[in-house]
């Protein structure tokens, strides 16, 4: 089921949260709404869900205008940032809630809940209360609850925001597989660009209520529409007025054409890569990211005089990224 957002605007009092925003989510895809906190991405998600009424604009799910349809009739599954577990119900009753509310026959409920608890690896926890679960388990329970009613669209608000780094990484790839298996159109909100790039087929970068760019992670990373996208999606330093990824800078010990001389100020080992901070002779500072092997070949030390050359700059706002990042609903 595709989702189309058309000219969406939403204000909270005097604050404009979303401003005239258009977005297409192709059927079956996993789209990440990415951007800094308070940028309006959660508001977009909540408008799609029907939890907020837009001031202007429309929402289409599978081509049908649902702007005035209440949340309960939109056929969506929604996972809240803090999971919103029903604290007075067991895990089983939490997951069964949507089916009970829809008056499904009892055998079907039993079958479906059992199946889902297995899917989210919570079989054996059915009789527990949410307070007796860990953060990751609560998250998986919330997912099972949302999936129980077989939603056409799955909406996740900062699904991994409240989890520690280890559990986060685990759940990420698990979610990726799950969504692929269920073939449910999914939109998730995150402020973590690494998470978005790892999980999503398509990312939509939203800042200050405006859509900055939509496209595949690779398209957005390689051909950012503007400086904000370039710097938000990955580390970038300004070099001679051009934005450069630190891994696209090359250092050598001998002068080369167009290379800038400088002195190494600090070396940080980050596992497989090394970060070298350099104070250039023209007074500016920059840093270079090197693969461990290249670093060892060069074997530089703090205080060494080196030359920094640019291997590639970031093509910001290039015309070719448009074709690549444009998406049409396929439904």
């Amino acid at each position, binding site marked *: 089921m595709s989702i189309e957002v058309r000219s969406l605007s939403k204000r909270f009092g005097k604050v404009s949260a979303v401003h005239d925003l258009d977005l297409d989510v192709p059927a079956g895809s996993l789209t990440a709404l990415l951007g800094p906190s308070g940028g309006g991405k959660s508001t977009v998600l909540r408008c799609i869900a029907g939890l907020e009424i837009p001031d202007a604009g429309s929402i289409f799910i599978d081509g049908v205008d649902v702007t005035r349809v209440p949340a309960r009739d939109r056929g*969506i599954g929604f996972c809240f940032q803090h999971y919103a577990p*029903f604290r007075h119900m067991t895990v089983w009753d939490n997951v069964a809630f949507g089916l009970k509310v829809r008056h499904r026959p009892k055998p079907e409920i039993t079958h479906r809940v059992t199946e889902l608890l297995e899917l989210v690896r919570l079989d054996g926890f059915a009789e527990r209360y949410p307070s007796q679960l860990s953060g990751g388990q609560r998250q998986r329970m919330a997912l099972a609850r949302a999936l129980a009613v077989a939603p056409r669209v799955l909406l996740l608000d900062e699904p991994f925001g409240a989890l520690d780094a280890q559990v986060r990484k685990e759940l990420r790839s698990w979610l990726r597989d799950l969504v692929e298996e269920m073939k449910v159109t999914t939109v998730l909100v995150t402020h973590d660009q690494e998470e978005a790039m790892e999980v999503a087929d398509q990312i939509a970068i939203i800042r200050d209520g405006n859509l900055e760019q939509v496209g595949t992670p690779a398209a957005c990373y390689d051909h950012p529409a503007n400086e904000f996208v370039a710097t938000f999606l990955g580390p970038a330093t300004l070099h001679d007025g051009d934005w450069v990824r630190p891994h696209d800078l090359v250092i050598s010990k001998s002068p080369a054409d167009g290379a800038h001389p400088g002195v190494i100020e600090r070396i940080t080992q980050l596992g497989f890569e090394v970060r070298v901070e350099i104070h250039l002779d023209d007074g500016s500072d920059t840093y270079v990211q090197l693969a461990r092997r290249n670093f060892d070949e060069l074997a530089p030390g703090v205080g060494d005089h080196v030359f920094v050359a640019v291997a590639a700059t970031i093509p910001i706002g290039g015309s070719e990224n448009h074709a690549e990042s444009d998406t049409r609903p396929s439904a």
Partner: protein
Amino acid sequence: MIKWLIRIIATIYVGMLVGVPVGSIVYRALKPGFHEFFNQLGTPSAVHALVLTLEVAAVAVTLNTVFGLGVAILLARHRFRGASLVEALIDLPLSLSPVVIGLALVLCYSTTQGLFGPLLVHLGITVLFSFPGIVMACAFVSLPYVVREVQPVLIELGTDQEQAAETLGAGPFTVFWKITMPSVRWGLAYGVLLTTARVLGEFGAVAVVSGNIEDRTQTMTLWVDSALTNFNYNGAYAGALLLALISTLVLAALSLSRAKEGRLR
């Protein structure tokens, strides 16, 4: 050492203020024997007072439960003009003397000089010196308890769970009964308990509006008072103990069911 001192002082304070007087009531009420206790409470006027008290409590508590829940939801979930005025009015009964409340009701509903008097005469409704007046007085004095117990629970609860239920297909009615009510049930239960205790024990406001007519508008507290005035000490103590027992039973029932549920979690 200081810890012990504080404990001893606290125990003596509560003991002297609450424990000893209540204990002496129990002692004095039962001293003449159970036979006398039941004799005193078996008199027609005592039975009438007890029945009236329970009827008034049933109606006033029901009214304030429904109204209190509604107002708590309104205040916790919606920002509106005049909300702070409603907040202030809700707390007013706590700061007004019950006698003043009784007097205020007289000024409104007296058939001869009340604000709504002529209208009430026209409609043939009597409020003062009858059941509606007593219920009104009791509802007035016990107004804040349900609201003040439920409102903070609702605020703490937030709207996430209600919205989650909504996205799962629940209508407003289902959300209320399956999510909101179970979440606030203990706050509500305590509010109802406090309201009940307050209504059972109300004296001043009821004394003013009821006229204290024996066998007609005399509630249990008024009966105890008139027993005392008539030097019927055995009756007064028996009535007082009965009132205390009813409140204690309600509290015990609540604590028990809560403890039972606590074990399940």
